[in-house]
């Protein structure tokens, strides 16, 4: 009887460890979901959601490029990223569009830029914030003096 009991206990212990090994193997093999989100866009300390209207961007300085061309440097912004990736991430920003609020005077794409156009974060961690992106607009003789609606595109991706 004792023999049976010991055998049963051995079996139970063995099966338990087998299950535990299987479970352990499952846990090791399971992949965490990849998290890589734009958490906030930050302009001079003010935080915005990724699709918000950035209300405190304005012209910070003007450089005269030529007799008829001026570069308008707008408020710089940074991007905070929510991620669990350990691999390099690229954060890109570009002007999608810029047009007068009345809709009549679109700016040319070649007159719109953001420097730098992207940052590569080699060792990302959660809540990491990029360095500054600065939007620039080239204004010419025929650039109409009025209010402009500008749209940006910010993208995250693996390198």
């Amino acid at each position, binding site marked *: 009887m004792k023999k049976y009991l010991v055998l049963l206990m051995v079996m139970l212990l063995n099966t338990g460890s087998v299950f535990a090994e299987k479970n352990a193997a499952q846990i090791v093999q399971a992949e965490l979901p*990849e998290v*890589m*989100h*734009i958490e906030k*866009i930050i302009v001079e300390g003010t935080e*915005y959601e*990724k*699709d*918000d*209207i*950035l*209300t405190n*961007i*304005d*012209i910070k300085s*003007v450089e005269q490029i030529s007799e*008829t061309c*001026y570069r*308008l440097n*707008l408020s710089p912004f940074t*991007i905070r990223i929510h991620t669990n990736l350990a691999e390099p991430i690229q954060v890109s920003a570009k002007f*999608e569009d810029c047009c007068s*609020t*009345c809709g*009549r005077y679109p700016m040319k794409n070649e007159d719109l830029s953001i420097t730098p156009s992207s940052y590569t974060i080699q060792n990302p961690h959660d809540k990491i914030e990029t360095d500054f992106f600065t939007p620039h607009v080239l*204004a*010419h*003789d*025929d*650039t*109409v*003096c*009025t*209010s*402009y*609606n*500008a*749209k*940006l*595109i*910010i*993208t*995250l*991706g693996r390198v």
Partner: protein
Amino acid sequence: MIKKILTLFIIITLIAPAAFARVGNPSFVFAIDDYFRDADSSNSGGNNGGGLSGGAITAITLGSIGGAALLGLGGWLYKKKTAESLTAACIRGSKNPLVPFCMETNPEAEFYARINNNYPYLKKALSLNEIHYCPDSKYLLIYDTPIDKRKFDSVKFEIPQGTKSLNITQVSDPFNPKDLTAELFLYKNETNTTEPYMAELENISEKSSEKNGIIMKTLSLDFQNYPYAAYVVSNYSDKKIYAVVIEFIFRN
């Protein structure tokens, strides 16, 4: 088939939020002119020049005023420069600001006949207000003037001593809001380049009516400190004709 579609839908719904979260579409509004006006109005200083001899009877020559091309940032800077006499071209009265004159008291005079026969816009502008004579008021008249798309005209003039208020009446072809603007730059000194823009007539006045092309504005200021001004008409849309009557009122 249904299973495949369902699977595809589930995959899309699982992947899509993550994909969207990786793309941001922020937007913002910025104003070019505000920046330059703010920067400009922060300038100060300059001497107050004595001014030209007042009271001379002159009028703008009948005919068209030369318009300057360019609008926008470059145009604004250019307008400002022309108004400040930095560039003499394309502005009437740049070197010697025009001096307001006393209106002809005889309604049968050739002066009025020429206006009535040849300049319907100016005729209408004059008819919108009662005409006052010296010593109560003096006038500057800008005769019917064509202005092409994306051009501006400037008239620099002297504000006579003793002016209590300005009454500006502009008649043009009908226009949509913002298609045609009228700005008034006031200066402390004829050649002072650091005393800039002060007032703008944004087609706003209780009497203004853009649809029928009439802008009316009465401006009461302490003109003692601003003996010079430039009136700038800018056309952002199709070619138009306009005429302006500027009355300098000496009585309260």
